[in-house]
């Protein structure tokens, strides 16, 4: 009692229910007092009427509306009243159900009020009828059925019938709609921006316009005279929104285009694909992702109708058959300098053989995620002497050193970029061959080559140091789990002057010291992924930021805290992606 009465303002811990009741000015003591008074009054009345105190049920209900359980006023003794009133009862129960939201409680109380304790509750507020009940309109007084849409009456008392509600609604409509508040950017939005690698803060007018155009792409009749770069940006955004379809595709098919990238062709039908050569006969570069509607007839049509096509990229074109690919290479192969085939099972030795035979000028070749690609397929590639970049990542079949080494021996001399990601059987011999036969390589992806050991990496880079490779720009050693500081030191020793991107995700044997040496050694380093390298802590991050690394991935690096200082050496801030519970 002393707690409740306290004028000192000091209160102990209490439940959500107690809080709620105090807020409403409801006190158990007051209710009990009023009940006692009423009982006393009723008793004196009964005496005055000359009857016994046992005339229970004879007294009319003070409110006269709750038919379900008429309250017997004479029978209410102080002790009973504290039991029957909802407040004290629920406040004891409230301790157990303290977690329930106040709204749930309010709803519950409303229900209870309708059941048995109407009189107690009407003292505090007029009852608001539930949907489905019959009520009287506060304006015209007619009976009507309450719905969830019933409007509150004037002065907030009672409800309005549908007719009066409509009138009020019409008046409301005349008023100007309240001005929309500028959408607040949530933490989630920020995280999304960060993961997209986008800049935070105020963007350019161009970027805002592009976003808006992409949002309302369905209402655009013509993109008009905008630059190819902006057009590509719009295409990227609407592909991501999955709104690239037959109608929006037309916007990008302008006759002067030479390069067309469609990043999501899932809704671009066969007819639409056929339309492209009709509208842009001079196309040189075509890139189709998720090209599930691409069929044999489309590909043969392309071979015929694109006289200038030098670069074709098809990802997810799983309907295109082997024979169609072969005939495409036979017809159009001589023009091709860049070709991608990815995510399909319809390849064979014959397909790769024809590719090599009929595309002698090929410079960039990507054959990734091909379910049937294996050693036998791979060995054909020796014939492509002009290849500058080769990507055979995530082959579905068996790719081993025995098949790859001769290929590298044959074509390695011209290679600038090589990706062997996900071909987990490759090991020491491959590393050796790369070192021996690829003297001008600039980008190397060895992700998930778990057979590779630390000493293989050291051999590779020391070989390069000897045979005059001028240094890598991009190296990905993610999930080369045996990599240690020494291996990384060899990388730094060789490529310190040129390295810009480094991936060492999940190389758990690395230490913070090793990474600090990387930061100190490589002046041009811009992007590093140290995800799941557990040794990385605040100090390592700060050293990397000081060295000018613009973007750092630290997913799963539990030692990186919120307190880390990410200011870059030359001003600005490093983008740190993946800190636990931290946004930017």
């Amino acid at each position, binding site marked *: 009692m002393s707690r409740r009465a306290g004028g000192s303002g000091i209160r102990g811990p209490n439940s959500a229910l107690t809080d709620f009741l105090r807020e409403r000015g409801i006190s158990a003591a007051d209710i009990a007092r009023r009940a006692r008074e009423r009982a006393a009054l009723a008793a004196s009345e009964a005496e005055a009427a000359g009857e016994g105190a046992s005339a229970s049920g004879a007294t009319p209900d003070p409110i006269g509306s709750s038919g379900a359980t008429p309250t017997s006023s004479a029978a209410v003794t102080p002790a009973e009243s504290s039991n029957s009133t909802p407040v004290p009862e629920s406040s004891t129960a409230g301790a157990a159900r303290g977690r329930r939201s106040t709204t749930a409680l309010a709803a519950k109380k409303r229900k209870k009020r309708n059941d048995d304790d109407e009189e107690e509750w009407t003292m505090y507020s007029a009852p608001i009828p539930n949907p489905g009940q019959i009520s009287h309109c506060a304006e015209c007084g007619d009976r009507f059925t309450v719905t969830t849409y019933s409007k509150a009456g004037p002065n907030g008392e009672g409800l309005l019938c549908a007719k009066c509600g409509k009138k009020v609604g019409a008046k409301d409509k005349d008023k100007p709609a309240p001005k929309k508040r500028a*959408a*607040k950017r949530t933490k989630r939005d*920020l995280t999304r921006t960060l993961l997209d690698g986008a800049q935070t803060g*105020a963007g350019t*007018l161009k970027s805002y*316009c592009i976003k*808006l155009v992409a949002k309302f792409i369905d209402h655009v009749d013509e993109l008009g005279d905008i*630059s190819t770069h902006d057009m590509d940006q719009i295409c990227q955004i609407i592909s991501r929104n999955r709104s690239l379809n037959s109608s929006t595709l037309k916007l990008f098919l302008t006759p002067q285009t030479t390069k067309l990238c469609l990043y999501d062709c899932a809704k671009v039908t066969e007819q639409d694909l056929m339309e492209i050569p009709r509208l842009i006969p001079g196309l040189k570069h075509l890139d189709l992702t998720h090209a599930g509607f691409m069929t044999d007839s489309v590909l043969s049509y392309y071979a015929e109708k694109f006289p200038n096509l030098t670069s074709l990229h098809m990802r997810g074109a799983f309907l295109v058959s082997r024979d169609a690919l072969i005939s495409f290479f036979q017809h159009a192969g001589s023009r091709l300098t860049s070709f991608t085939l990815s995510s399909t099972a319809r390849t064979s030795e014959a397909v790769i053989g024809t590719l090599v035979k009929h595309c002698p000028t090929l410079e960039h070749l990507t054959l990734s995620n091909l379910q049937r690609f294996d050693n036998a397929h791979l060995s054909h590639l020796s014939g492509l002497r002009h290849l500058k970049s080769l990507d055979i990542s995530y082959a579905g079949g068996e790719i081993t050193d025995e098949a790859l080494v001769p290929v590298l021996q044959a074509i390695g001399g011209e290679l600038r970029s090589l990706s062997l990601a996900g071909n987990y059987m490759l090991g020491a011999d491959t590393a050796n061959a790369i070192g021996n036969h690829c003297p001008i390589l600039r980008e190397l992806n060895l992700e998930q080559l778990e057979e590779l050991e630390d000493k293989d990496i050291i051999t590779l880079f020391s070989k390069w140091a000897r045979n005059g490779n001028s240094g890598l720009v991009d190296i990905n050693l993610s999930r080369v789990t045996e990599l240690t500081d020494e291996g990384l030191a060899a990388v730094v020793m060789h490529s310190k002057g040129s390295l810009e991107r480094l991936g060492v995700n999940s190389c758990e044997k690395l230490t913070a010291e090793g990474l600090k040496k990387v930061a100190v050694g490589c002046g041009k380093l811009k992007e590093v992924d140290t995800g799941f390298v557990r040794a990385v802590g605040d100090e390592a991050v700060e050293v990397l930021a000081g060295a000018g690394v613009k973007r750092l991935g630290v997913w799963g690096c539990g030692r990186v805290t919120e307190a880390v200082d990410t200011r870059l050496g030359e001003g600005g801030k490093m983008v740190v992606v993946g800190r636990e519970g931290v946004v930017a």
Partner: protein
Amino acid sequence: MSVEDQSSVILESGDGFQFIVRKSAASKSPAIRSMLDKKNAFVEAVENKIVFKNITAPVLEKVCQYFYYYEKHKGQEVCPDPDFITPELALELLCVADFLDC
């Protein structure tokens, strides 16, 4: 009319509307910045007024609004997206933004 105050510049649209904008804000656009550079001695720099024949007033107004929006939020990590760009003008504005390089 010319602006005596050298801290502002008049931007005039093709249909003759004039917008007086702080130079500090208008300099967001490298194109405008170089036009106003005294070293280049363009007419624009001397008169302190730039006429954009191909830009209409509604679009130029949005551009000016953007200049102030950018000046206000420059350097902030979290800022609301601008609410003044309307979908009807977005494409035209995109071309202009491309021209002004902002």
